[in-house]
């Protein structure tokens, strides 16, 4: 009997812990975050959570967690937390990427700010950026569970408040999506130059392998943004109830339409609802954007949330392991590592410490080689490389198989012509 009572108490305590409301709410929050991020993953994009405007191509983050632990985290939560921003590089190869299209002319050092804050304009110019599209995201809310923090867009809890329900299902459509990025080859050359700086190397050396712990840098090569989110919510509850969701709102659905013309009554009802969400205008200015009710009935409501400037919802990146002395290993794509389709980013090898390239000269090598026979031209090329923050020596560029793209850039940007030159085409 003495042994039975403590055992019974232990079982009771464990049961209370497992089925506590706090745990259920936490689980619901995690599930909603994961569902949102699954939409990104289905589009081969890593999820940004919470949403943020301040994530850019060229951002380099420190990753303190081992790849196996990150995979576990990614599988459980659907997203990877950003640890620490080490630096923000401004990619130099946008010119080759966009060739003056998408309002990038003469803005190579300013992207994406020429879309965010165009000069002499009162609104942003993200409509000019490359467009993207995403599938819609569905969600469900069960009674007794909260969405206060987990839903990335505020239109959802407001819709739930309007319906006065906490049992509902709905859909989120990511609208006005755009994207921009840069090729890994040119960006990684910039990363190499940055990592070779003495101050950077000293910083990275602090994160050299410590026993089994490996640290990484994560380099963002592309980001996806949205300027508008459309939300529809349908009431699943047989009767209304209190809801603890998002910013408290006073709006309530009118009991019935006013007599008279149906279209006019409906329009009046929408205006009433929008006005009830704000005292002076039909838009609701909330942190993160303005919300407008597009359609409403007794059991459903559709809202659109427009962000004052688009925010980043997803990204593509690659990782490099930090080795002894702050030397970086070979890059591996982050998403493929998380999906288990490539091995974790390896530690640097001897060939990473000493610069080694495989022979792969081509027609451009001969053109550049003949051109730099003149010392004046060699100096010009070296100055161009310095301006691009490329530290690789000219002999390696001439002969390395991996520098074929760089040789083509040299041919094109220095107008050297030859059979592969594109200048004047």
């Amino acid at each position, binding site marked *: 009997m003495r042994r039975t009572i403590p055992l019974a108490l232990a079982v009771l305590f464990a049961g209370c812990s497992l089925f506590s409301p706090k745990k259920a709410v936490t689980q619901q929050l995690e599930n909603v975050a994961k569902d949102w991020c699954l939409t990104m993953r289905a589009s081969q994009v890593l999820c940004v959570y919470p949403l943020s405007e301040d994530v850019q191509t060229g951002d380099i983050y420190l990753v303190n967690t081992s790849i196996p632990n990150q995979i576990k985290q990614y599988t459980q939560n659907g997203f990877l937390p950003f640890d620490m921003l080490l630096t923000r590089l401004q990619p130099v190869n946008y010119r080759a990427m966009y060739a003056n299209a998408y309002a990038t002319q003469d803005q190579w050092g300013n992207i994406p700010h020429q879309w965010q804050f165009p000069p002499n304009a009162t609104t942003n110019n993200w409509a000019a950026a490359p467009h993207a599209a995403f599938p819609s995201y569905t969600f469900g809310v069960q009674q007794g569970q909260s969405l206060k923090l987990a839903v990335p867009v505020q239109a959802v809890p407001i819709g739930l408040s309007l319906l006065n329900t906490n049992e509902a299902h709905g859909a989120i459509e990511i609208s006005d999506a755009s994207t921009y990025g840069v090729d890994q080859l040119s960006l990684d050359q910039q990363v190499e130059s940055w990592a070779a700086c003495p101050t950077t190397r000293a910083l990275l050396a602090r994160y050299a392998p410590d026993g089994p712990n490996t640290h990484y840098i994560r380099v963002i090569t592309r980001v996806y943004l949205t300027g508008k989110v459309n939300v529809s919510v349908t009431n699943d509850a047989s009767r209304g109830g209190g809801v603890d969701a998002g910013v408290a709102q006073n709006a309530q659905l009118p009991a019935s339409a006013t007599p008279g013309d149906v279209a006019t009554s409906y329009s009046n009802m929408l205006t009433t609802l929008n006005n009830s969400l704000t005292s002076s205008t039909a838009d609701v200015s909330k942190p993160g954007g303005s919300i407008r009710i597009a359609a409403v009935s007794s059991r459903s409501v559709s809202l659109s949330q427009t962000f004052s400037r688009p925010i980043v919802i997803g990204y593509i990146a690659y990782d490099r392991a930090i080795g002894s002395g702050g030397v970086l290993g070979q890059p591996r794509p982050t998403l493929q590592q998380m999906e288990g389709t490539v091995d974790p980013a390896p530690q640097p090898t001897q060939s990473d410490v000493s*610069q*080694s390239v495989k*022979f792969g000269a081509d027609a451009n090598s001969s053109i550049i080689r003949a051109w*730099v026979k003149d010392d004046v031209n060699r100096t010009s090329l070296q100055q161009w490389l310095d301006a691009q923050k490329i530290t690789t020596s000219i002999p390696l560029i001439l*002969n390395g198989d991996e520098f074929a793209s760089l040789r083509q850039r040299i041919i094109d940007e220095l107008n050297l012509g030859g059979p592969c030159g594109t200048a004047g085409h």
Partner: protein
Amino acid sequence: MAQQVTDIPKEEVGTVVQDFVDNGADKVFVERQADGKYTVSIP
């Protein structure tokens, strides 16, 4: 930092050596690989 170019065909070795010399290298090493190709390096 040491630099090297590996897997060079025999007929291209002279050109690669000349590239390093033209770029100011004082010493250039040539090594024959097991597969018959060559590695050119500078310390």
